[in-house]
Every structure is written in C-alpha cells, then in structure tokens.
C-alpha cells in the first residue's frame, strides 16, 4: 500500500547569495503522517513555501502524484490537491467563519459568474452544495456554533482549528500543517492531536507537519525529517530521531554530546 504521493528531488532555493535550503530529498507515501522538525531558521517553512508554489525552487524538482508541480502558482498547486495552514494565522479576518470555509471550497464548485449574476438555477444549486459541505466541515471541528461570527472574534485556539478546517475544505489529498499547535496549552494540543488523527482517518489524508512541540511530533508522526541550516540531517522513526546524535547536537549544542 506504500505508493508514492509526493517526492522532493534534491530541491534547493537561493535568495541572492543565501542558500536557504539545499539538497533536500524527501518522500511521502499515501496515508503517511510525517513530521518536519528543526531549530528556528532551519528552512522548514521555506520548504513548505516551495511545496505550495509560493517560492519556486532554484534546484531540483517536486513531483506530486507522478507529475511535476514545480513552477505552478499556489492556487494551481491547491487545485492539484495540496493545501496548507500558516504558521502565523492567516484567516480572512473580517469574514464570517462559515464564509472562510466557503472561500476554500470555492474551486470545487463550478457555477459560472454569469449564473451568479443572473441568479440562474446553477447558482442556487452550487451555493446550496457549498453551504452544506462547509457546515459539515465546521461540525467536524466543533465550529458550527460560531458559523456567523467574524473569524477575528474567535478565541486563538478556535482560530487555529478554523485554519485547519479551511485547509480541509479546499479538498486536499496532502495536508501541510505549519506549526498547528503553536501557542496552545497542553490540553488544547492533546485535543488537536486527536483531531488530526480523526481527520486523517476520515478524509484519507496524507499529512506533513512542522511542529516544535516534541510531544505532538513524537506522539503522532510515523516518520520524521530533521532540517538544520537548510539541509536534512536525519530521517527516521520518532525513536531513531530521539537517539540520533546529530539531531541532539542541532537542538542542544555540541557539548552535550559526550
């Protein structure tokens, strides 16, 4: 069952003279939950940005479902089936919770502008379907009670959840979570772990997540990649990573390794 979904082939990116990420080889099999960790500034988010088309890698190639997605615009990558959340929450703040999800659902609907302007039957049918699907997503995340609130008025933890709900509404096969537990307390983190497990099961997702919370990463990831200074320094199961001297060195400094 281990068919390849995503493959990063020796990718790298240069900003002027700075090599932010180089020689990164990664793969994700369908249905896996993989963690990407590393100290601050290691290039984790940059890697995400290359995956989602925000940056175009200057070296190497990215293939998703056997097709190269290098050079595609972010919205095209999303249409291919990769969606993401952001490290610093990027909700549509002055829009209701329901509309936030509907916006992500946008590209899965197909009624045209003309049908919307003239209020043709296709418009009502399409909108009703979007409404139903969006509410279903909100229910999974326990957000349906807030559906008419503005996103900016939600408590922080709920905003994080809404980010994930919105990413899911874009209909991904591969979900990229950028520090989903940042700023959460242990209880919220535990709830989030359960939630990730649940949606993974329910939507048949493959998940790649960046996280600093080691409990979360070690608790739910099947494999972990470790980045440091833009290069992969380790790969393996949580157990292997925990005991890898290079990883301990990257996180804690050299003296500790005796």
């Amino acid at each position, binding site marked *: 069952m281990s068919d390849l979904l995503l493959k990063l082939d020796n990718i790298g990116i240069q900003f002027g003279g700075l090599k932010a990420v180089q020689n990164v080889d990664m793969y994700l099999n369908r249905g896996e939950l993989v963690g990407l960790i590393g100290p601050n500034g290691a290039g984790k988010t940059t890697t995400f940005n290359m995956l*989602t088309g*925000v940056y175009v890698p200057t070296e190497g190639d990215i293939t998703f479902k056997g097709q190269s997605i290098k050079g595609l*615009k*972010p*919205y095209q990558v*999303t*249409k291919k089936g990769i*969606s*993401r959340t*952001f490290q610093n929450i*990027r*909700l*549509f*703040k*002055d*829009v209701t919770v329901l*509309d936030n999800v*509907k*916006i*992500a*659902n*946008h*590209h899965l*609907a197909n*009624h045209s*502008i003309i049908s*919307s*302007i*003239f*209020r043709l039957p296709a*418009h009502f049918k*399409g*909108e009703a379907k*979007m409404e139903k699907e969006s509410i279903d997503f909100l229910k999974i995340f326990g957000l349906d009670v807030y559906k008419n609130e503005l996103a900016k008025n939600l408590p922080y933890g709920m905003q994080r959840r809404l980010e994930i709900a*919105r*990413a899911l509404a*874009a209909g991904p096969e591969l979900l990229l979570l950028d520090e989903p537990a940042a700023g959460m307390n242990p209880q919220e983190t535990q709830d989030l772990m359960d939630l990730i497990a649940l949606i993974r099961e329910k939507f048949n997702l493959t998940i790649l997540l960046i996280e600093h919370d080691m409990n979360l990463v070690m608790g739910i990831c099947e494999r972990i990649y470790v980045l440091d200074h833009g290069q992969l320094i380790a790969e393996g199961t949580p157990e292997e990573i925990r005991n890898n001297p290079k990883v301990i060195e990257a996180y804690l400094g050299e003296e500790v390794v005796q």
Partner: protein
Amino acid sequence: MKKSKAFWGYLVIALVIYAVVQGMLVTGMLDLYYQNMLITICINIMLAVSLHIVIGITGQFSIGHAGFMAVGAYISAICTMKLGLPFIVGIILAGIVAAFAGVLVGVPSLRLKGDYLAIATLGFAEIIRILFLNIDYVGGAAGMVVNHATTWTYAFFGVIITILVISNFTNSRHGRGCIAIREDEIAADAMGINTTYFKVVAFVIGSLFAGVAGALYAHNFYIIQPTAFNFLKSFEILIYVVLGGLGSLSGSVIAAIFLTAISQYLQAFPETRMIIYSVVLILVMLYRPTGLMGTKELKDLFKARKKGGSEV
C-alpha cells in the same frame, strides 16, 4: 425562499420610489432643477457602487475611475451624435467598450499592490483623458456637444441594474473570492483562488458600470469636455466609497446621495462651498473612521435592531 421574498420586497420598494418620483416629475411637482439633481445622484450612485466592487470588495486601491467614465461618455456620445444610433445602444456600447478598457488597464496594472496600483491607475486615467483631449473627432479640448437624452427612467433603472448585478456578484462564490483577496491575498492564493483573474473580473465589472454612468452623464449635461474626467472626478468617486465605508454597498449608495445632495445644496454659497464640503468630510472621518456604514449593510442594521428588540 426567504431570500427571494426579500428580493421581491426590495423590487417593490424600488418600483414605488420610481413611480412616485416619475409621477411628481410628470405633474410638475418637481421642477427641472430637482430632476437634474436626481439624475446626478443616480449617476453618482452608479459610479460609487462600481468603484465599491474594486476597492471595497476586492481591496484594490484604484483611483482612476473617472477614466472609464470618460470612455463611456465619449463612446456613447459618438454613437448618438456621430453615428445616429439610439441612446440605449449608446449606453450598452459605452459599457462594453469601458469594460474592454478595464481589461486593457487591469491586466498590466493589477500586478501591482497598494500605493503603486493607485498611481498606475491614476496614470492610466490621465492617459485616457489626454487621448480624448487630442482627438479632434470628438472635439478636443473644446468638448463635444451632446443632446439631452438622459431621463429619470434611464438613470433610475441604471442604478437598479448596477446594484443588482454587483450585489449578486458579491453574494456568490466569485464575490467571496474577491473578498478573500481583500482580506489576505497570500491565503486566498493558497486556498485555490486565482487572484489575478478575480482582480481583473472585479475591475472589468467596475469599469463596465462606470462606462454606463459616463454615458448617462454625457447625455445629461449637453456638453462633455475632457476636463470633466480629470483626477478630481476620480477622487470624488473615491470619497463616496471611503466615506460610505469600505466594503459596504449600501454605505456607498448613502454616501453618494448624501454628498451629491450637499454639494448641490451648497451651490447657493459659492464662496464657502468647498470649505463646508471639506469640513463635512473631515467630521465624518473623525467620528466614523470606518465610514458611515463600516463594512455593514443596511439590512444588517435592521437585523441587529430586531435582535436587540426581542431581547429587551
């Protein structure tokens, strides 16, 4: 079902307003001065609402709206005066050509953001104005004489169609795509929204109705001159949108009515007119920095009141 009920309700209200005013015009209760004022208000509402979709909904700060109005005005004038086509054909062609101009201006300039976009659109509007200034066929700087053809009926139904199309667009998946761009362009892109496409679509719809408004304007004042479409006109439209509240369609409408009425009323005091007008603007901005309506619509206010009432 509920939605369509509200829609028919609005339509009935609109028709009643139309019928009452039309009746008053026919019976002579409202004289030419007021007729002219009503038509001016209608034209300004159309301009405000058509800019609202670009700035308020899509968040693209375009300040060259008078340019598209000029295109509409001149195209319709050419149709009726030079080619002898009926007025309605002139209006439709004005809209189409202005929309086409919107594509030409929008595609290159909407790659820019914020202040840079503002300057680029301002530049394009000036180019359009200078073009008309130098084309002898349309009278150059002296302007072009146009027959009076705009009536209350044209103006009123122009407003109704503009509001209907733009509010229908806004309350659909396409409009939500535009709102997403306004809120966070990077996130919108990541959620599968083709940001360039939607910016251009909003811009083109805005230009189309600015063109129609331009056509009505041209046939209301007997003469059109390029100076009528300079950047001051663009700013006037911008003020309606900002004062009404960015993102609020009813706000744009109310601001357009309010400011046009004030400006017409103040014509009796030519020396202090612009001072009073400016003071009104400053006061509104000081006390309502988000504009008259914020991002709310008129119906939201009624809803809030109803809710408050039932709680008491």
